[in-house]
C-alpha cells in the first residue's frame, strides 16, 4: 500500500546511562513502591497520589458495576415471559432505571478517566502527579458522595422515570425519589468536571521535556478530548437538574405545560450534556485501543495525526448533534435537518479510527493475549454499533426505530461492545503495571471470548426485535417478540459469567500471580520504563522524550537499541531515556 516512508530517526546525542536490568527477585521483594511505601489506612484514604486514587476508583467503580449488572439481570430475566416473569410493573421500571443511572453515571463515565486516566495520564507524559493532586482526591470523594445519594434512593424505594428523567413524568407524576437522584447526578457531575479540569491542566502543563503534542500517546489525546467535553457539557446538566429540582420542590414549574412551561426544553438541555456524554464514555475507550493494538501488533499506529485529530473532531462536533434524540419530540423540522447533517459528520471520525486500527494491524507481528482479544472484540462490536447508529441518525429511518429495541441494541453495542471491552482491554493491559503481578493467561483469554460471545448473543436479536417495533422499557410485550428476548436473556447469562471471571482470576493474581517485571509486553510507553508497581513519585528523574510513542517499528526495540543500533547508547524504543536509578530498588 502507499505509505509515507519516514526513516527511523537517528539520534544525535549521547545518553548518559543504559537502562537498568530487570530487578532481581530479591530487589523486587525489598523495594518500596507506591503500594507499600506507607501502609496505614489513613495514608490510603487521604492520599494525593494519583495512582492510589486510581485504585480507589477501581474498587468503587467495580462495586457499582456489579449493582448495575444485577439490575440488568433482573430486567433480562423478567423479559423471558411476555407477561413479565418475576417483576411487577413498577418494580421493572425501577430495575431498568437503576441499571441505566448506575451504569451511566457511576460506571461508564468515571471508569476509564477515573481509573486508567488517573493512573496513567501523568505516567505516560512523564509527570510526577496530576496537576492538582488534592483536587484529584476531592473529586473522588465528591463522586463518592454523589454515588451514595444513588445508593440512598435505591434503599428508600428506588427511582422510576428512566435515566433520561423526562418531565413532566419525572417532576410531576413519578412518586419515586427523583430529588435524591437529581442530587446524585448533580454531585457526580461536579466530580466529573473536576477530573476533566485536572487532566487538561496536567496534559497542558506537566509534560516532560520532549513530550510535544505530536509525541503524546494517543490515549492522552483521547483523554484530553474527553476532558474538554466533561468540562464544557456537564455544567449544563447540573443546571438542568437544578431547575428540575426547583420545579419539583415548588411544585410548579419550568418544564410544566400546565402553566406554560415546555417539556421539550428539558430534553434540549438534557441532551446537550447527555449526547456528548456518550463520547465521554467512548473516547477514552478508543484511546486505550490505540495503545493495545500498537503494542501487540508491534507497530506504529497507522496515521497518528488522523487518529489524534479524529478524537478532537469527535469531541467538538459531538456537541452539535444532540437534537437527533429529539427528531420526533416536536423539535422543529429544519433544526432537525441541521442536527441530522452534523450527526452524519460526527460519524466520519469514528469510521476513520476503525479503518486506521485495521490498517495498523497490517504488516505487524500480532500476538493475542487477553488485552488484544478484547481490543479486536472492540473493533468488531463497535463497528456494528457505529453503523447501526447511522439508521438512528438518519431522520427518516429514525421515525420507526425511535424508542425501540433497535436503539437499545445500538446503544449497548457502542457502550458495552465498545467502552466495556476497551475497559477490559485497558485493565488487562495495565494490570501488571498497576499491581506488579501477571494474571492467568488461559482464564483471561477464555473470559474475553466468553464475554464477546455472550454479548453478541444478547444484543444482535434486539436489532430484529427493534426493527419489528418492540418498544423499549416494556415489562411485558406481544408474544411474537418472545423468541428474541429469550435469546437475549441467554446471552446475558453467558455475559454475566464472562464479567464475573476477571473478578476471580485478577484477584487471584494478586496473591498467586508471578511477578510481571518492568515491561512484560515490551511496550514503549513511558509508564513501562519504570518498575512495576511504580515508585511513589513515578520517576526519580524527569524522563526526556526524543521521538514518537509507538516506535515498535524497530524490531524488538529494546535489545537492538541497547546494542547501539540507534545512536550511541541505550535509549528506549520510544526514545525515553529515564534518568539514573529509576529502576533500582530503594
Amino acid at each position, binding site marked *: 500500500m502507499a505509505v509515507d516512508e519516514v526513516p527511523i*530517526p537517528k539520534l544525535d546525542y549521547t545518553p548518559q546511562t543504559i537502562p537498568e536490568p530487570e530487578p532481581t527477585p530479591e530487589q523486587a521483594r525489598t523495594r518500596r513502591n507506591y503500594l507499600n511505601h506507607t501502609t496505614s489506612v489513613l495514608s490510603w484514604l487521604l492520599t494525593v497520589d494519583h495512582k492510589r486514587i486510581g485504585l480507589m476508583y477501581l474498587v468503587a467503580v467495580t462495586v457499582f458495576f456489579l449493582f448495575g449488572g444485577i439490575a440488568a439481570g433482573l430486567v433480562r430475566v423478567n423479559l423471558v415471559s411476555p407477561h413479565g416473569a418475576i417483576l411487577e410493573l413498577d418494580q421493572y421500571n425501577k430495575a431498568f432505571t437503576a441499571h441505566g443511572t448506575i451504569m451511566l453515571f457511576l460506571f461508564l463515565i468515571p471508569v476509564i478517566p477515573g481509573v486508567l486516566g488517573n493512573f496513567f495520564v501523568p505516567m505516560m507524559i512523564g509527570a510526577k502527579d496530576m496537576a492538582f493532586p488534592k483536587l484529584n482526591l476531592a473529586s473522588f470523594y465528591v463522586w463518592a458522595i454523589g454515588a451514595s445519594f444513588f445508593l440512598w434512593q435505591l434503599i428508600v424505594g428506588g427511582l422510576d422515570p428512566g435515566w433520561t428523567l423526562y418531565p413532566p413524568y419525572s417532576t410531576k407524576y413519578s412518586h419515586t425519589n427523583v430529588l435524591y437522584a437529581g442530587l446524585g447526578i448533580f454531585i457526580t457531575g461536579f466530580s466529573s468536571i473536576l477530573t476533566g479540569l485536572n487532566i487538561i491542566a496536567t496534559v*497542558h502543563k*506537566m509534560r516532560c*521535556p520532549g513530550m510535544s503534542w505530536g*509525541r503524546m500517546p494517543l490515549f492522552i489525546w483521547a483523554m484530553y478530548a474527553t476532558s*474538554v467535553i466533561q468540562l464544557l457539557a456537564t455544567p*449544563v446538566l447540573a443546571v438542568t437538574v437544578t431547575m428540575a429540582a426547583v420545579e419539583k420542590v415548588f411544585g410548579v414549574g419550568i418544564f410544566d405545560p400546565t402553566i406554560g412551561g415546555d417539556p421539550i426544553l428539558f430534553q434540549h438541555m438534557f441532551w446537550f450534556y447527555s449526547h456528548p456524554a456518550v463520547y465521554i464514555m467512548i473516547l477514552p475507550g478508543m484511546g486505550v485501543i490505540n495503545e493495545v493494538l500498537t503494542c501487540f501488533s508491534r507497530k506504529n499506529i497507522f496515521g497518528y495525526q488522523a487518529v489524534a485529530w479524529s478524537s478532537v473532531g469527535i469531541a467538538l462536533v459531538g456537541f452539535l448533534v444532540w437534537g437527533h434524540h429529539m427528531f420526533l419530540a416536536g423539535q*422543529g423540522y429544519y*433544526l432537525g435537518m441541521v442536527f441530522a447533517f452534523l450527526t452524519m459528520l460526527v460519524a466520519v471520525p469514528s469510521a476513520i479510527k476503525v479503518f486506521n486500527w485495521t490498517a495498523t494491524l497490517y504488516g505487524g507481528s500480532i500476538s493475542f493475549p487477553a488485552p488484544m482479544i478484547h481490543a479486536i472484540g472492540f473493533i468488531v462490536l463497535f463497528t456494528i454499533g457505529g453503523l447501526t447508529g447511522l439508521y438512528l441518525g438518519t431522520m427518516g429511518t429514525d421515525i420507526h426505530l425511535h424508542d425501540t429495541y433497535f436503539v437499545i441494541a445500538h446503544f449497548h453495542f457502542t457502550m458495552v461492545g465498545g467502552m466495556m471491552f476497551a475497559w477490559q482491554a485497558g485493565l488487562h493491559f495495565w494490570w501488571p503495571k498497576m499491581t506488579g503481578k501477571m494474571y492467568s493467561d488461559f482464564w483471561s483469554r477464555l473470559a474475553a471470548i466468553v464475554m464477546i460471545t455472550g454479548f453478541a448473543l444478547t444484543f444482535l436479536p434486539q436489532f430484529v426485535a427493534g426493527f419489528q417495533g418492540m418498544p423499549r422499557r416494556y415489562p411485558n410485550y406481544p408474544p411474537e417478540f418472545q423468541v428474541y428476548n429469550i435469546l437475549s436473556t441467554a446471552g446475558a447469562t453467558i455475559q454475566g459469567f464472562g464479567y464475573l471471571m476477571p473478578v476471580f482470576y485478577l484477584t487471584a493474581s494478586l496473591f498467586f500471580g508471578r511477578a510481571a517485571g518492568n515491561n512484560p509486553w515490551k511496550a514503549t510507553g513511558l509508564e513501562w520504563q519504570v518498575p512495576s508497581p511504580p515508585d511513589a513519585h513515578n520517576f526519580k528523574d524527569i524522563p526526556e522524550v526524543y521521538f514518537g510513542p509507538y516506535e515498535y517499528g524497530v524490531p524488538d526495540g529494546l535489545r537492538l537499541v541497547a546494542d547501539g543500533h540507534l545512536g550511541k547508547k541505550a535509549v528506549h524504543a520510544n526514545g525515553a531515556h529515564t534518568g539514573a536509578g529509576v529502576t533500582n530498588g530503594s
Partner: protein
Amino acid sequence: MDHDHHPKTDVHTEEAVVHDVAAPGPTFVAFFFIVTLAALALFVGFSDGLGPWKLTANLAIACVQAGILAFYLMDLRQADKVTWLIAASGVFWTSLFFLFTLTDYLTRYLGVL
C-alpha cells in the same frame, strides 16, 4: 510527528509568572467606565423611552461592562493564548447552546402542521 531530537522544554521555561503590575491608573479608569455604564443601565431601565429595545440595550451595556471587566480587571489582556482559548471556548459553547436551542423555538412551526 516532528523529528527534531532536542527535547522541548517549553513548559519548564520561567514564563511571566506575574502580570506586570501596571500603574493603578488603567484599573481605576476601567472601573470608572464600568460604574458609569451601570448607572446608564439603570437609567435606561427606569426610562420607558426605548420600549421593546430596552432589554437589548441593557444587555449590550452588560456585555461592554463584562468585556472591560475581563480585559482590565481580570488581566485577560496580559494572559497567554491558552487562557484566551479557554475563556473564548466557554463563551463559544454557550453561544452554540443558545443558537441551536433558540433556533428550535424560532423555527419549530415552520412547514410543520
